[in-house]
């Protein structure tokens, strides 16, 4: 088991190299001179001599690979560079914005679970009856919703017209409602369908028929056996959804001015703040992969069958 974890962590390294290399390469290739950008971001129009000087300082005149290695080494030392726009260390900016994004993601996952599990189960149990069909239609529409659209509509209805909830920012405890509600609607629609499908699949398995034949009442069968098996694929999905969440959070954060990393990244892109963009990509990837590893580990723990097979 420990070996498995180490194996996965080692696997992380080449991927990280690949990603950082790609991002760095893209940054290198893209138009715009980093030195010039950095200086203009402070509001002054730089003279050619100043640009040259800063280029020398930043080591931009060295060949590409050397620059990449320099960047890598400083990253290992925890230095992700200085943001062009904010003139602050990238690491600080990212770490400061991460909690907000996690809060949002966490809330969304929580709400999604609370909503989709019961509804999905209900839908499966009343299969093809009216309740099920209503749920299926609604969730089908839910997965077709464009994220920005539903977010803005919710904002329109609840903030502007009804004046119930704050429009943007992270001011008080109500601020999180709209953003996470938007994401939850999208995510829960998918999950309801998944839960329903998994449960239906489990119910038709032989052991369920066997248990019922032996007289165990339906509710016990459901709770103890079916749910347990369903939990495994659902958790896997959750982990994978996290990546989607991190990405989708970008849109929601932008719309609601939620001070998370997503918003930070978008601003960084528009101001061509390359150090920040790179830091963002690296961090997001690390987090994403860690979550995946966690999911795999939980998979391993929850499902004894996995232990019979070798690694993923």
């Amino acid at each position: 088991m420990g070996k498995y974890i180490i194996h996965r962590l080692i696997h992380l390294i080449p991927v990280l190299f690949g990603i950082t290399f790609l991002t760095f390469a893209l940054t290198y290739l893209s138009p715009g001179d980093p030195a010039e950008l950095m200086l203009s971001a402070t509001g002054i129009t730089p003279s050619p001599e100043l640009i040259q000087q800063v280029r020398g300082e930043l080591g931009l005149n060295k060949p590409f690979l050397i620059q990449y290695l320099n960047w890598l080494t400083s990253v290992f030392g925890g230095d992700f560079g200085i943001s062009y726009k904010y003139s602050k260390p990238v690491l600080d900016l990212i770490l400061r914005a991460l909690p907000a994004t996690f809060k949002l993601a966490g809330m969304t996952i929580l709400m999604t679970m609370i909503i989709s599990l019961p509804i999905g189960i209900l839908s499966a149990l009343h299969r093809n009856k009216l309740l099920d069909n209503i749920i299926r239609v609604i969730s089908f529409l839910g997965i077709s919703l464009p994220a920005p659209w539903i977010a803005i509509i919710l904002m329109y209805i609840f903030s502007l017209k009804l004046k119930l909830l704050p429009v943007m920012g992270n001011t008080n405890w109500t601020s999180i409602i709209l953003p996470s509600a938007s994401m939850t609607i999208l995510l829960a629609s998918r999950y309801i369908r998944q839960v329903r499908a998994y449960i239906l699949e489990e119910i038709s398995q032989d052991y369920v028929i066997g248990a019922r034949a032996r007289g165990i009442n339906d509710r016990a069968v459901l709770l103890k056996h079916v749910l347990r098996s369903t939990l495994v694929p659902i958790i896997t999905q959750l982990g994978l959804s996290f990546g989607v969440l991190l990405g989708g959070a970008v849109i929601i954060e932008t719309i609601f001015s939620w001070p998370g990393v997503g918003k930070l990244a978008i601003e960084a892109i528009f101001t061509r703040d390359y150090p920040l963009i790179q830091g963002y990509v690296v961090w997001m990837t690390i987090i994403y992969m860690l979550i995946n590893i966690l999911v795999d580990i939980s998979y391993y723990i929850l499902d004894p069958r996995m232990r019979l097979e070798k690694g993923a």
Partner: protein
Amino acid sequence: MLAFGLVAIGILAPYIAPHDPLKTDMMNSLKGPNSIFPLGTDQLGRDLLSRILNGALNSLKMTFSLVIIIFIVGTVLGTLAGYFGGIIDTIVMRFCDIFLAFPGIIFAIAVAGVLGPSSINTVIALAVVNWPKYARLSRGLAMSIRKKDYIKAAKMGGANEYQIIMRYVLPNIIPSLIVTATMDIGTMLLEISSLSFLGLGAQPPTPEWGYMINEGRTYIQTAPWLMIYPGIAMFITVTIFNLLGENIRDILDPNKQYEGEI
């Protein structure tokens, strides 16, 4: 059927749109829906209906190119990997892993952000991130087919590898892949629009639904229709394609294992 209607609208849009979507007319800006401009005008006086119709063309163009690209690239690579195994398999899978490790939208943001926003860059970025799915799928299917008896029979009959792939492997793989692709049309459309919404995709003055939603954001209190209608258009389109996908799946794929929907 509905989907064909949609695509037809998309293609015909430039002809049936009542006004030039790019023509601005400041006198008429921000008018509500009326008889001349059925869905109202935007802040530059452009007719919203025409922009939505042309937006259909643009959004669908981008979506279809995207899906076709990842379909072809993913399927080819995956089939080769699955059928031949060995080194090819390892290489392709390593690449898959690298790209799968990226949270999709984040990489798309990085690419679009660094290379500059444009429709083409968006499609490229999303293509790079999404092809592994098809590669994995086709690889798995190819691998399971490789062991079947009729393949051995074909080999003994003297067919060469190319013929085997074309005549046996591919036809058995294609249905599942087409199902996935059709269901992806909706998803890809949403992703493209999301990126455009963020300003990373289609650029002004090109009408594109995601971008139009973003434009409408500023005017939400004075002219809410600017945001509502493009969104509705997107919603309806995605719904139709998802429906199409589900129906195709019911027809083509008796297994239904990977989705589990019964």
